[in-house]
């Protein structure tokens, strides 16, 4: 499978994180409701009890003043009273007047309202620290009243609830992430199988297909539709191969017979000089027709992208040097300066087709460069972006910009009177070879002349 990009962009990771977030939201809502239904209710009950107690005592203060209140408090904190409620009444100077609390708790200051603090309680010999939730209340004349309840059990309950909630949340996130990643990977593995099959087919393994799980799910449907498409591509490719093969076979058979027959007459040497000359010309024409047939079939196959198992790592620089060297004597004989500057240009491809493309480009350049004073330059290397290229430039008449696309079409020649040789398939073949390799053929102005550059993909 090809790398899609940074981790976040992979669907598996996004799937897992989204999954975990959804789980956490659901869990948070559930725990919140549970908290409100248990601890929240207990806390509200406690607060309501405290409030009514404070109100009752305040009523007592209003009716009977501090003395009545002190009495009431003393009753409530007597030996027979339940020990989980604390009271404190202080005078205007802050002195303790009544209650089972020694002094106003320092940590809460003098504020009124709902407060929480801790007290140290004698329980037999042991001193224990208890948490208290209380209501503080300012009475008339600077008196202050505090009524509180030991809420240690409730707080302990809350702490345990929180601890459990945190662990449950952590566990849920971990499970959700793992589950999400697992599910995501399973899903993506099947998508990747489809992608891989497509890539393999594109690279030439025509019989590759997307595996089905057999469960008949959406991925099986995807696999079925991709496979149906691949079947069709394979059928088309094979049809292409069969039709080029049969054209090849059907045209070559009569050509072979004619050629063999003429060959035999010529070899017997009893046909007479005029007939022999005619036969010689006929043989040349047959060979030319064969050459055109070969080029057309090569172009057809290359354009159809009929894949080859003959691809290997190669150096366009070496191919450029070899082809230039093959043509060097021809250039010299025509008085054309052929220069080579071949930098290493590594790539992947079919060496024979690329060599033929290089030879065609040089052949073409030598045809158009002016004899006796022409200059043809063969280069290779890598462009800045990375792809390997092979370029051939000449100082001939060049090709007007609006005609450059046309000359790579089959049988198009700019000036039919100029190029008497060849059928105008040279550049078409080069372009088809470039495309077969996933590259391209660029034609540009060499000022003067034409620069043709074959690029492999980077």
């Amino acid at each position: 499978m090809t790398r899609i990009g940074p981790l976040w962009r992979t669907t598996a990771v996004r799937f897992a994180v989204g999954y975990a977030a959804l789980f956490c939201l659901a869990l948070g809502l559930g725990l919140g409701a549970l908290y409100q239904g248990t601890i929240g209710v207990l806390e509200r009950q406690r607060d309501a009890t405290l409030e009514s107690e404070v109100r009752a005592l305040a009523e007592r203060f209003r009716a009977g003043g501090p003395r009545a209140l002190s009495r009431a408090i003393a009753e409530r904190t007597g030996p027979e009273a339940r020990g989980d409620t604390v009271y404190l009444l202080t005078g205007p100077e802050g002195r303790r007047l009544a209650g089972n609390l020694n002094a106003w708790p320092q940590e809460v200051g003098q504020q009124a309202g709902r407060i929480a603090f801790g007290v140290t309680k004698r329980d037999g010999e042991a001193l224990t620290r208890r948490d208290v939730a209380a209501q503080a209340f300012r009475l008339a004349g600077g008196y202050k009243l505090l009524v509180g309840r030991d809420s240690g059990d409730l707080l302990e309950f809350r702490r345990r609830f929180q601890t459990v909630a945190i662990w449950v949340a952590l566990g849920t996130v971990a499970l959700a992430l793992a589950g999400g990643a697992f599910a995501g990977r399973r899903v993506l593995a099947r998508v990747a199988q489809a992608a891989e099959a497509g890539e393999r087919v594109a690279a030439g393994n025509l019989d590759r297909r997307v595996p089905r799980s057999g469960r008949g799910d959406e991925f099986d449907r995807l696999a079925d539709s991709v496979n149906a498409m691949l079947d069709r591509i394979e059928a088309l490719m094979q049809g292409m191969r069969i039709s080029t093969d049969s054209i090849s076979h059907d045209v070559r058979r009569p050509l072979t017979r004619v050629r063999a027959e003429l060959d035999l007459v010529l070899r017997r040497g009893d046909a007479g000089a005029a007939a022999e000359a005619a036969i010689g010309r006929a043989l040349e024409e047959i060979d030319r027709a064969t050459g055109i047939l070969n080029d057309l079939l090569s172009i057809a196959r290359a354009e159809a992208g009929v894949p080859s198992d003959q691809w290997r790592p190669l150096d366009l620089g070496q191919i450029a040097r070899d082809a230039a060297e093959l043509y060097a004597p021809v250039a010299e004989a025509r008085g054309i300066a052929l220069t080579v500057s071949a930098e290493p240009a590594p790539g992947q491809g079919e060496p024979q087709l690329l060599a033929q493309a290089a030879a065609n480009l040089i052949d073409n350049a030598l045809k158009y460069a002016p004899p006796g004073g022409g200059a043809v330059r063969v280069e290779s290397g890598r462009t800045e972006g990375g792809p390997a290229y092979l370029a051939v430039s000449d100082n001939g008449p060049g090709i007007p910009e609006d005609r450059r696309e046309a000359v790579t079409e089959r049988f198009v020649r700019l000036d039919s009177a100029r190029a008497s040789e060849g059928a105008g398939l040279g550049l078409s073949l080069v372009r088809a070879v470039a495309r077969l390799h996933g590259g391209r053929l660029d034609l540009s102005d060499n000022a003067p002349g034409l620069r043709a550059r074959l690029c492999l993909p980077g």
Partner: protein
Amino acid sequence: MRVLIVEDDAETAGFLRDGLQESGHVCDVHGTGTSGLAAALSGGHDVMVIDRMLPELDGLSVVRTLRAEGLVTPVLVLSALAQVDDRVKGLRAGGDDYLTKPFAFSELLARIEALARRGAPEPQGETRLVVGDLELDLLSRSAARAGAPVALLPREFSVLEYFMRRPGRVVTRTMLLEGVWDYNFDPQTNVIDVHISRLRQKIDRGRPPLLHTVRGAGYMLKAPE
């Protein structure tokens, strides 16, 4: 030389037989893959020419079966399929050479004669090749004609070496392209002729010619009689 021809097109097979017989060879002609295979297995051939598309059993299967049976007789595969892949498949199946239709008879003759000779043991570890008064030192990669050194470019040396390993035999342009340049296509311009004329200027200048043109076929390096 006894040649087995397995070709389903009767006319082409007939031309092949006539041509080979006129060149002094004996031919067995078969028109189907199965009869061709049976004839091949009966043995006694110096070289075989097998068409790729045959009725009953295709040519490549015939070659594969022969090789599986341990028969090493050189095989030239004749084919109407000219693509690089086809050629590679033909050679991979066990063919020794591959020729596409239509072909020049001289090309076929040169190739099967070269193949038949391949059967004969070629001297190994040679360091010097000599034809007439032309000498090639394979170690120093230098050449001398009648004792006088001849300066050759590396590729010219390879071309000359190809000829000197086949003295007195026809070497065609495509054989040179395949053997020296490793090109399986025909360049549009006849570049080989220009190479040969340059090589000829270097080795034959002012001396009795060694490198001859064989009309309608190719070239031959031969010591003067």
